[in-house]
């Protein structure tokens, strides 16, 4: 570690502050440009949309934290599948809502178990395993949900879109969820185990941690969160669509990185995920407001991700 990296470490001592700071700056620039108009609406919109990224971001964070090379590429396909299946099952009726929730959880459970089986039994690296399973899941979603124009049950749509004093109810739930997972990471055996495995899998085993059991739970959790996301996203958007999960692959990884979790594993940051999700959404809003073209927007988003990871540097795990 050279001197400049050490300076950065001290300045950004609480990594999640950085993401929120960025969010604040971007928001200020935006409303400066609009001369204060719509400041509140922007915040509400940010909370609305960022919610979904946070849900899958947490799942992705859990997977990434278990160590280098662990990533869940099946999240978008999972979202699409869950959206399609739950919409069809619920068929727009409130009575079937609870069934829909269970179906979503069932989807997640099945995908998680499938992913982990590929990793464990076929000994495929997690990237390839989740990649290939995403192909299958996506096809299932497409075949099952083609031409689907079923509206979500009104209760679900309300839940996903209603606001309380300008704050979306769903966002409140997901903030609570983030809080819950923060506690999990800091205060539970499971959280502590993931952090140990991410730093050094072998040392974790030798320190008494049941490594494979924890990894299994992690992949299942990530899949469950993705399925839940699919359910509420369909409720929010008025129905499921085949490419509803597309943007969430890159987004889920981006919020983990920008939020301050270590890509090499062993260091998680749940509050940072909210900050990063808000930041990304507001960044896009700001660029839109400033009249920046779509192309430039994409370029800047990409460059920011690269800048963040380059500054953080590669954390090579001890061999």
């Amino acid at each position, binding site marked *: 570690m050279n001197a400049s990296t050490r300076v950065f470490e001290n300045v950004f001592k609480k990594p999640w502050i950085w993401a929120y700071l960025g969010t604040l700056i971007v928001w200020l620039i935006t409303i400066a440009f609009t001369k204060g108009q719509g400041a509140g609406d922007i915040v509400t919109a940010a909370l609305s949309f960022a919610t979904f990224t946070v849900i899958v971001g947490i799942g992705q964070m859990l997977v990434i934290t278990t160590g280098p090379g662990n990533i869940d590429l099946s999240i978008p396909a999972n979202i699409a599948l869950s959206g399609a299946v739950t919409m069809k099952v619920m068929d727009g009726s409130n009575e079937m809502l609870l069934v829909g929730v269970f179906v979503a959880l069932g989807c997640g459970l099945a995908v998680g178990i499938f992913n982990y089986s590929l990793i464990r039994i076929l000994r495929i690296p997690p990237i390839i395993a989740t990649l290939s399973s995403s192909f299958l899941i996506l096809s299932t979603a497409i*075949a099952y949900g083609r031409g689907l124009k079923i509206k979500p049950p009104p209760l679900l749509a309300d839940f996903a879109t209603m606001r309380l004093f300008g704050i979306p109810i769903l966002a409140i739930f997901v903030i609570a969820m983030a809080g819950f997972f923060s506690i999990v990471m800091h205060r539970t055996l499971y959280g502590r185990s993931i952090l140990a495995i991410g730093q050094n899998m072998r040392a974790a085993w030798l320190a008494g941690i049941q490594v494979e059991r924890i990894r299994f739970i992690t992949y299942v959790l990530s899949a469950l969160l993705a399925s839940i996301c699919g359910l509420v996203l369909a409720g929010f958007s008025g129905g499921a669509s085949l490419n509803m999960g597309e943007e969430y692959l890159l987004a889920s990884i981006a919020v983990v990185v920008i939020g301050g979790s270590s890509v090499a594993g062993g260091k998680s940051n749940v509050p940072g995920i909210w900050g990063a999700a808000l930041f990304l959404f507001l960044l896009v809003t700001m660029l839109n407001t400033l009249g920046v073209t779509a192309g430039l927007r994409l370029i800047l988003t990409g460059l920011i991700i690269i800048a963040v990871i380059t500054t953080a540097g590669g954390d090579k795990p001890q061999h």
Partner: protein
Amino acid sequence: MWGYLSSPKFLRSALPAASFLALLAAIFYLQPRTMSYFGLNLMLQYAVPIALATIAQMHILMVNDLDLSIGPFVGLTACIGATLLTTNPVLGILALTGCIAAYAGLGALIYWRNLPSIVVTLGMSFVWLGIAVIVLPTPGGKAPVLIKAIMGFKFPFIPLPIILATAIALIVHIGLMHSSYGAVLRGTGGNPKAVARAGWSLLKSKMLMYGTAGFFGVLAGLSLIGLTSAADAHIADRYTLYSIAGVILGGGEFVGGRVSAIGAVLGALTLTLTGSFLIFMKISPDWQIGAQGAILIIVLALRALINRKEA
């Protein structure tokens, strides 16, 4: 003789060819009319750009990295090819050269700061897409006449895609497997410390691998517009997943520098065939991508079985 044929080593290297031939045989069985020049040409049309993208990914995997941006990059080069290259060839060539240089620069950055290639290429996928959208905001453009002519050339007896795919496989194979520096480059994937200790620059090799990947990415984009005539920024988004699957199907390993150019091209061809296979099986095209995933899993399962037999 039987001992060699059933040895894990042979089985592993034969798997890509076997998968391809098995799929081809199944298609011929389902629809004998495809056993023709026209049939093969049609089925394997898009094999060339996919194979080129797969070769690009192969170079990255060879140095134990992964490229999540090859799809958008191919889209970008396609857009540049359909616009700049046609209107202002010199500028177009400069732009494409710049793209290759940028890829090499990425390799240098990743090596210098020891960055995870997944995240960096993830960010770059946004960048490539953004540039492509600026170059070509709406689908359109026109492919250069020369490229169209090359890609549309009707070779006698053997369909063009097969000729080109074979040529690509052979050229890369010779370059990597038969050149003296190619051996060193592959060595950096297998035991980088030992190669560095022998006095070779790991930075140079990484930059070369990434630069080569960029080069093949450019070729992929150009060959693509030769087939489609027009371009669009999102035209090759699926190529990222295709290229990874192609390398893996071709026997490439994730770590250790064991890749096969011929295998990668065969893998790309196999993936390209799945579309036709599903049509003839009367399975809806919805399952195309699922079938690709299933093939990948089956091949990996077979590989795991072969490896277990070895243990």
